[in-house]
């Protein structure tokens, strides 16, 4: 027993003498909340770090969240921003560490913003570098900024939150009820980018260019392409949203990738159909034109009743893809006052909205085959079931076959409940 104690003692002594290499106090660390990559002017990369300032979280700093000095202070006090240029990701950290008093820690980075300029070139090497690092969370959001990431991070203003992390987490989780963005976390992005059956997407973010709503021109939206009279709720992407708010930034739509290379962008409405096609769709409010009265709308709260059914059949070199999307909806508003709640009339509304959805979905699918040439929906996964060995699948090369695809879309929408009003009574005038 005595010897055992001696042994433990020696061992503990060794441990303490050799000290604690990895120990790092929390208050010696600068936690980067968001970090952006741009193409540099003088070097390969321009990196922007948004670092949390903890004193804003202390008891005294409770109220100082950008509220003070309205016009002057553009940024909330809880974060600070620095931008540098460097050849690689990690050397950038080194440079920042020289002038920031605390050591940069990226374990709490919530967002990675990449400028579309950089994304359109091959950004795989940077993503790989981040993937290799232990510190980064696999669950951080990967976003593409239509414009420069630096500008985006400088314009972010957490109006409602003190905590920057909460701001990002809540903002990018809003796809659950808006369906204008998707859940694009780093690990998902990477595994999709390396997969042979599906391609990645990333949330599109941007800085809104207009200062006042009056300046907004509807020509910026793509309603005309979609054959509409006016733009609907999702006919635009981030950076082009008709809004007026202290926070100039916005997130809407998706950037489409082929491998790790960006090939195009989708607007909000397309994102919704993307979500419906992949089955990630939760619920959202959708404006549908009234089937009878022109320029009146029916508003539906659309949910996905079941996951979509994909079926892929090869006919020669053309994949025939049939998709069945099953939706259900609650009526939120009927502007025309027509009594669609009537069980006989509800079918009319159902078919009209099915047609409406189908048209847009087919448009989106064709855009992915013709313009993007990238299967972001994962039809390749259904194709994969038909192969026996990896070799065959590799040789088949789905990504090359996808652009030829032909589609057969079926949308099945059932209106379930009409909200609080069972029968619309007309206003007397």
């Amino acid at each position, binding site marked *: 027993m005595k010897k055992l104690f001696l042994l*433990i003692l020696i061992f503990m002594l060794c441990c303490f003498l050799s000290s604690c290499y990895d120990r790092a106090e*929390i208050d010696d660390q600068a936690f980067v909340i968001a970090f952006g990559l741009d193409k540099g002017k003088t070097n390969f990369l321009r990196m922007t770090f948004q670092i949390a300032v903890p004193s804003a979280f202390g008891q005294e700093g409770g109220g100082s969240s950008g509220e003070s000095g309205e016009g002057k202070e553009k940024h909330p006090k809880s974060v600070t921003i620095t931008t540098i240029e460097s050849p690689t990701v990690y050397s950038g950290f080194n440079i920042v560490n020289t002038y920031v008093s605390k050591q940069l820690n990226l374990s*709490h980075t919530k967002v990675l913003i990449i400028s579309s300029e950089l994304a359109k070139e091959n950004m795989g090497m940077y993503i790989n570098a981040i993937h290799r690092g232990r510190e980064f969370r696999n669950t951080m959001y990967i976003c593409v900024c239509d414009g420069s990431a630096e500008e985006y991070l400088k314009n972010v203003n957490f109006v409602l939150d003190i905590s920057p992390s*909460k701001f990002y987490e809540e903002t990018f989780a809003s796809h659950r009820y808006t369906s204008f963005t998707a859940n694009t976390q780093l690990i998902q992005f990477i595994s999709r980018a390396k997969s042979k059956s599906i391609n990645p997407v990333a949330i599109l973010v941007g800085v809104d260019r207009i200062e006042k709503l009056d300046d907004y021109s509807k020509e910026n939206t793509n309603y005309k392409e979609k054959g509409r009279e006016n733009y609907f709720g999702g006919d635009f992407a981030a950076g082009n949203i008709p809004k007026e708010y202290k926070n100039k930034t916005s997130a809407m739509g998706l950037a489409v990738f082929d491998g790790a290379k960006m090939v195009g962008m989708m607007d909000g409405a397309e994102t919704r159909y993307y979500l419906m096609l992949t089955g990630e769709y939760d619920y959202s409010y959708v404006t549908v034109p009234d089937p009878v009265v022109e320029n009146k709308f029916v508003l539906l709260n659309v949910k996905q009743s079941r996951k979509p059914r994909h079926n892929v059949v090869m006919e020669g070199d053309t994949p025939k893809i049939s998709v069945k999307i099953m939706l259900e909806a609650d009526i939120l508003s009927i502007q025309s006052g027509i009594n669609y709640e009537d069980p006989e009339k509800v079918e009319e509304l159902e078919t009209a909205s099915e047609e409406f959805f189908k048209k847009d979905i087919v448009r989106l699918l064709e855009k992915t085959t013709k313009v993007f040439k990238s299967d972001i929906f994962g039809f390749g996964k259904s194709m994969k079931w038909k192969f026996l060995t990896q070799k065959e699948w590799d040789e088949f090369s789905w990504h090359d076959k996808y652009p030829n695809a032909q589609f057969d879309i079926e949308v099945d929408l059932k209106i379930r409940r009409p909200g609080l009003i069972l029968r619309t009574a007309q206003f007397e005038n």
Partner: protein
Amino acid sequence: MALLRKTLKEYLFFTEPDKPDDFVLEEGKDEGNESCNDAVKDGSGEKREKTEKVRKSKGVIKKLFTPEREDTACYGYDSNADNSEKNESDVKKESKDPESIKRKTSISKDVARNLEYMRKVYNVPLNGDVVIREFEIAFKDKTIPAFSIFFDGLVDRMLVNESILKPLMLLSNIEIKGKEDDIADYVQKHILPQSQMLLEESYEKVIFGINYGCCAIFIDGVDKVFVADAKGWEHRGIERPNAELVIQGPQEGFGEILRINTALIRKILKDEKLIVEDILIGERSKTPCSMLYIKDIVNDSLVQEVRRRLKGVKIDHLIDSGELEQLIEDSTYLPTPQVIYTERPDRVSRYLANGRIAIIVSGSPFALVVPATMWNLFHATEDEYVRFPYANLLRVVRLFAIFLTLLLPGIYIAITNYHHEMIPTDLLLAIEASREKVPFPSVFELLIMEVSFELIREAGIRIPGPIGPTLGIVGALILGQAAVSANIVSPILIIIVAVTGIGSFAIPNFSLAYSFRLQRFAYIALGATAGFLGISFGLFIMFLWIAKAKSFGVPVLVPYGPTTADVNKGNIFRNPTWKQNRRPDDLNVKSKNSQQEISRQWKINEEEN
């Protein structure tokens, strides 16, 4: 130099280790020499495939004990308990002291010599509380000189006056139709109306009796001494237990008087097989101790082992059972206790009924129960008295409390120093903000707080009554608040330390709480050294150590390690009472069942009707 050489030799070179006889509990089979073998035949002994076998232990005392000796009734313990051979050797050792030789000498017939001798023994003019009362007894027309000797305060004065001195001095004058010629017989049969009285023949026993609150009566011409039990010392009554409080359940605790304590147990266990075996411990103090067990339940080899250990204790004075615990436990270095230390008769009775052995030390309100497993220490008395869902809630809370006490500070240090990523970001930033102004590293900060918490706790116990709570408030609230506002510690740390402290109070066994409080510091150090790796290192070694430990032949972690038949027998979570059919398997008891297989017979009757 010699010491150095010895140390060098011990540490530098291999020496053959001496093999200590590890006590292993015998399989649950009857040895065949006892009458109570009815319970063993249910064949439950085969359940264990363990190769545990008892070794022919050399130290076991072969002479079987005879607890039912009649002549011990007077003192309430057996003064003969010590082996005579041992006594002889003691005498030889103490041969320089002439008195010790004389003690063995027999009593003289001459009362004057006896008186002189007793005066010498008790240093009478010097010793204030020895009372020697000389008087004369009238016996058949003559008066015989006599004297009584006792300690003032130890005896009941009224008793001595009324039923010893009064009959001897007054009643002896009355004509009694006794035919005895022998005065000793006469006195015993007619004069002294004392229920517990002995005739002793040696000084040693007489002196022992006097020391133990008896009144000795020396009569001229008699070479025996009347030793009358007149114990009347002051003592605390039966009170509520102080350390182990329950809401539901019996409310009486042990006192300081041995016999009252054993009576409290016998009151609960009305079982003629309950043996109260007496052993004296302490060369000088001769503290009477009782070893309690139920003969037809307990494993015989366990009884032998406990007896062997108790008899092997050689110290001068034994004051409290806490001392005895340290003298008989298996491993002194193991931080966790291996003996149950309780002041509740009902708890002791439950353990006795399960086949354990209790040891009660005279003068100590705490009984020791052996063997103890970790789970016994983790259980509270109340667990059995409340309905089982509630008891399980309590157990979950307790498990959580153990976790907090042991690991919370260590884990806090590990996380804040090594694993930043796992704290939710907002909390992390809040911690960072609160630590911003603190000048110390977090380990040091934590140690400051932990040490001051221990300080407050210790001071709170030691401080005289009324100030205690005040100090707690002052310490906890004002000091904490001041420390935070002086930026010496961060507020989040106060929460950590406070929660840890509260957790340690929720552990039912006081020594277990001590052990966790102690080990907590090791985990802080390990957490600061290597984060979670350090903590798991500590846990691993603690588990190994505890897994190796045994309490009187029973592995401490039983039934989980080694796994025995009753793995799911309500050690962590309690079973409903009607399911607790069997006694713990690890004790290898003679009677496995503690209640009938169907303990709720009325259930069946109901169905039948």
